[in-house]
């Protein structure tokens, strides 16, 4: 068992993340993304469940046009890599453990419900905005797009707006 190590200095971690993003731009002409990979996984599951439903839907059908599996996708491989990278980082820092992280003032049940709802909202919003914090905001800002800056301001502005209503979950 590795002894638990402190997190990296945030500015240094930012430089590291920036270099990863720059590598994605230089190697593949893309930014980073996370919600897109989740979407492709869902599309694949629905496709495996019902081909009829997929072929008749204006949304799903476009992901099956080329006859390739939606899982053989840049974004899916990227999030698989993220699981490996996160695990390596956790392993060398002694942070791998099954845990429900929550404020001591709320129940586990409440934490799980809020985590679930947060996921539903976040990825739904990411579909509307054509990307999440990484795909639309961070990667967009790196290439100076208006979409990147507007999405970033909308996410964090809204976070502060709603923070008051959900404060009991955290502080």
């Amino acid at each position, binding site marked *: 068992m590795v002894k638990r190590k402190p997190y990296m200095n945030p500015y240094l971690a930012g430089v590291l993340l920036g270099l990863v993003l720059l590598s994605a731009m230089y190697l593949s002409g893309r930014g980073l993304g996370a919600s897109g990979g989740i979407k492709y996984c869902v599309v694949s599951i629905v496709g495996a469940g019902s081909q009829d439903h997929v072929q008749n839907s204006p949304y799903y059908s476009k992901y099956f046009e080329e006859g390739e599996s939606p899982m053989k996708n840049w974004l899916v491989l990227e999030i698989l890599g993220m699981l490996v990278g996160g695990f390596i980082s956790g392993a060398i820092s002694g942070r791998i453990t099954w845990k429900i992280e929550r404020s001591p003032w709320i129940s586990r049940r409440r934490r799980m419900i809020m985590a679930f709802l*947060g996921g539903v909202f976040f990825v739904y919003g990411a579909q509307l905005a054509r990307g999440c914090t990484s795909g639309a905001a961070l990667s967009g800002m790196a290439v100076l797009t208006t979409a990147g800056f507007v999405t970033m301001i909308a996410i964090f502005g809204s976070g502060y*707006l709603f923070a008051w209503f959900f404060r009991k979950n955290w502080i």
Partner: protein
Amino acid sequence: MGPIVYMMGAGPGIQLLIAFLIGIGFGFALEQAGFSSSRKLAGMFYGYDATVLKVFFTAAIVAMIGSRILSSLGLLDMSLVFHNYYYPGPAIVGGIIMGAGFVMGGFCPGTGISAAAIGKIDAIIFLFGGGVGAFIYAETYPLIQTFQNQGNRGAVKLSESLGLSDSLFILIVVVIAVVLFWLAEKAEKIFARPDITREL
């Protein structure tokens, strides 16, 4: 001249391998930053931990300046790098919904993945909820597709809209970021919650 995959005409196998390797770096950086902890991320919205702002803006600036340097050295053709399209309505409404999800769940999709990778069960549930969110979106797409696809302004750059050169614009972003870093360091002292941060 980069992007490398276009220069060497890389096949799909190589592209997917690059995606996997980039993902490893991405997940590693997020976990090292402490983004595998929802209470650390939520600290951004309550002031006791501003790591999110520090990491996010540092990363954006490094990528902005780095790509600018590569481009001016003739090593990277920025016209081949993806620029996201601006649809004002969906970007703002989607962003607002994401912000609500952020304070409810304490993760965004990327940080949720890095947290799930080290065994955070709340992150696994967050990602499961994320899959449900993508499913609801897909099933209700016919109802919202008009809104979703209206007002496309194209891959517009904010620097161009403001009539600034890219370099001057980046300089302004750096100055704003430094001010925000200074405010973040102050906020962490004013809103300090040692009882929470000690446990993270």
